[in-house]
């Protein structure tokens, strides 16, 4: 297994370089004027900008190898360039936005996975009866509901509606003041974790209040997929001989499901779940927008709209690493869930 992981780690840099070259090449297909959209973001900014001067100044007309060389040279020196879409250096933007999305993804991941598995198990065990139907309808409604609709509905009920419990944003004014003060140490950039590490329960509770609604939205709109996979996988497993054998040995139904059937049924869930979580971290655009969380997803969209090369390349690099790591994790999880799987 270790040798397998080692081999995958060696291949990873080549995969990343490949991804970057493809994206860099695609960006070079744009005309110099189109590339200028990175620097002039709206018609209002045209004022006094001599277009030809800017094209020359930023080297937008330079040959592809010159631009690639410049970019690679910067990356070697850990300089990912300036992100016009974030109005700060790209690396700094990444470090600022990553913990935001990561925190939301972490808080959503557990409910998504556990909720999906639980709902799938409930549906399969109650195959074709009322509970099965209700569970599936509940999940499918979530799947069909666009994130922005679910988000806004929840906000309208739980903030400024029936009750005023869960405000948008990441922190309230008072908690924000504490977090920005010198007495509060930033360890991870994730408010809930930093609050615990600072032993500040006021900030922790405030951060939790702000994360509950987006985490619910993230979970609810994603449960259906995992539910369906878990349900069909568990149904198939429950029909297998080893389950019949377990039952015939007189094992309680709960033990049959929990100890024997569910573990086997989890294999396809692990395949989908791993990739699902990898995408989760940068697929939060709508939820981040509705709940005013300025994370990676929103940044990536802005960068794409503006052809912000520095940000897009850094983002591609991050996604490459994320997917390779996610795939590797799934492979390792296979081996754990199914002892028959080996990679040697």
């Amino acid at each position, binding site marked *: 297994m270790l040798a397998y992981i080692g081999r995958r780690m060696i291949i990873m840099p080549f995969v990343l370089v490949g991804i970057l070259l493809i994206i860099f090449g695609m960006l070079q297909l*744009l*005309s110099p*004027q*189109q*590339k*200028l*959209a990175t*620097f*002039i*973001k*709206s*018609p*209002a*900014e*045209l*004022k*006094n*900008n001599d*277009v030809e*001067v*800017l094209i020359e*100044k*930023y080297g937008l007309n330079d040959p592809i190898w010159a631009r690639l060389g410049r970019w690679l040279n910067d990356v070697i020196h850990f300089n990912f360039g*300036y992100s*016009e879409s*974030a*109005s*700060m*250096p790209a690396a*700094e*933007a990444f470090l*600022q936005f990553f913990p935001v999305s990561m925190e939301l993804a972490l808080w959503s991941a557990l409910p998504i996975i556990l909720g999906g598995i639980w709902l799938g198990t409930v549906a399969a065990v109650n195959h074709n009866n009322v509970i099965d139907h209700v569970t599936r309808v509940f999940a499918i409604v979530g799947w069909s509901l666009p994130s922005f609709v679910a988000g*806004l509905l929840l*906000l*309208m009920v739980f*903030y*400024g509606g029936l009750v*005023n419990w869960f*405000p*948008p*944003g990441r922190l309230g*004014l008072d908690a*924000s*003041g504490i977090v*920005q003060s010198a007495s509060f140490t930033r360890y991870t950039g994730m408010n809930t974790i930093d609050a615990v590490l600072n032993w500040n329960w006021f900030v922790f509770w405030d951060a939790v209040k702000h994360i509950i609604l987006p985490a619910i939205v993230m979970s609810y709109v994603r449960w259906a997929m995992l539910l369906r996979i878990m349900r069909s996988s568990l149904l198939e497993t429950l029909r297998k001989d080893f389950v019949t054998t377990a039952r015939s040995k007189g094992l309680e139904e709960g033990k049959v499901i929990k100890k024997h059937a569910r573990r086997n049924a989890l294999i396809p869930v692990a395949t989908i779940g791993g990739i699902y979580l990898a995408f989760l971290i940068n697929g939060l655009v709508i939820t981040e*927008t*509705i*709940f*005013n969380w*300025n994370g990676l997803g*929103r*940044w990536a969209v802005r960068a794409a*709209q*503006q*052809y912000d090369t520095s940000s897009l390349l850094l983002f591609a690099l991050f996604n490459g690493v994320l997917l390779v790591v996610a795939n590797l994790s799934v492979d390792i999880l296979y081996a754990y869930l199914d002892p028959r799987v080996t990679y040697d």
Partner: protein
Amino acid sequence: MDYDWKRNLVFGLSFLLVISLFVAGLAQDRPEIKNPDTFVAATIGGSASTLDPAYIYDTTSSAIVTQIYENLVRFPMGKADANELNAEGYSLGEFKPMLATKVPTRENGLIRTTDDGKVIYEFPIKTRVNFHNGNDLSPEDVEYTFERVMIYDRTGGPAWMVLQPLTGYKSVETLVVEEVSEADKFSETTKEERIKAYNEYIDPAVEVDGGSVLFTLPEPYPPFMSILAHGANWSAIIDKEWAIEVGAWPGTAETWVDYHDPGGGQAPSESPLYDKANGTGPFKLENWDKGNEVVFTRFEDYWRQPAQLERVVYQRVKEFSTRKLKLKDGAADTMGFSLQFLPQVEEMKNVKLYKELPTVAMNPAAFFTTDVPTENNDLVGSGTWGDGIPSDFFNDVKVRKAFAQVFPYQSFIDEIQYGLGYYTNAPIPKNMQPFYNQDLEPYKQDMDKAKQLLKEAHGGTLWEKGFQLTILYNSGNNQRKTASQMIEAMIEQLNPKFEIKVRAVEWSTYLEQLTTGSMPLFIIGWAADFPDPHNFAKPFAGPKGTFSGFQGKTIIEICKNEFEPLIEEGLGTTNTEERKEAYYELQKRFKELVPSFPLPQQLGTRAIRTWVQDAPFNPMYEPWYSWLYPVSKSYE
């Protein structure tokens, strides 16, 4: 007896219910003030790029430094708060002292002309003014501020506004090349030449004279005072000692080039003042969470009474519904919104909405391109009559006039601007008095006249053979989309042989088409850098103007022959009457030759909680940022 007891109980409970409802109703009218010492603005705006006043050329960053830094003078402010609208109280042509003790005028002798025609502005500087770090304000700080802006001159930045009046050049690089060097490019000039340019042009332009600062202009430049006024971040006074301490330009001739155009104007973070601020303003920077939030705290040693508010927070909330919920809850005191959401804001309780505030902009306006390239340009179809347009389609003034007269101005005001639009002439905005030509009737829709003009245009060929062209708009801009569709609908009504297609493109493609002069007709807008007619006359009517430069050689010729002499006349004198005459004539000729025409202009809006008091108003500030020094929160 039993019956009486029950009746009394029912009566008592009913009474209590009525009282409770009444009290609840009262409470609803005056809900408890949230965060009474903190003002929260939920903004639409983009992300601030830097806090360096010399770099900033965007509204969001400018709104931040406006609270922190101060200028030599400021515009008088009107008021639009919870109780009162005094939009008329503002002025764009008068000034009040800020860090100067007096506003220079010819009458008080602080503006004078030398024998060789140079104009000197003298600003006596206030004493006992502290920067946020405790340093005293001195005239040297003022001199350093302006010299730094001039040598900094980042690509695409605002320094041209200071350089132009003080040196006659829009860029310091051009100044070096043109005045002291034989080289063709700045990069080829020698160190000695650069030092010489500094010593002969930059340094003498701003000098300390006792407790005053003297600005020497090579020739009259009427907008000069507007360029210095508060809100103009490039003229915000910084602390020389502090700036040098944190790594900014040391103020010497030998070193200026090292601090010129850092990062090629591409990397604001390369400036040492990128994320630091130290002004004399009523609020200090507490925290800048980039892209999310800016927090200011009250400056207790402010030279006037400290501000009423203890804290100011700008929160960037991209989604309108979320902003609205925050304002509704009282977690925000004001918010920005685009006009499409006006009906929703109108329904909000405990929110005061102003919707007829004056604006100073020329946005949107429709521009024609003459001599449009027809090769590899799908926007002009085949490039000939019938299924395209010839290159000189808009060279004929009758075509341009016809397009200006088919536009359904009133429908645009009613449907797109929710009634908050007004007719105007171009290129001077209606609120830029006294330079707007009141006697001139703006274009109105007249389909018969338009039909007649198109019948006569191009010797009748246009009418006979018809045409087809495409109008682009940058996707997401609904106002431009609808304006384009309105032109399409009206033109196609005139003759079945006329066809206009409307297409959305990404901003990058739009920019490419614009800068290559490929769009036969484009809709774009302009907001004021500084409130002076020159800031509109030049980009719209100057032969090298921002827009006219993209409109083909025929329009450039028109600008050169018909408009440029008037633009120079308007700029060459400080006499208001003479300027007015020049700009009146410019507007008249502009309407006749119609290189572009203004669509209805939109009035400004402001939504604030009913507890916001003394909120100033001036159209040069964004309505939801404004200048927050006098603001407080109460119901009295």
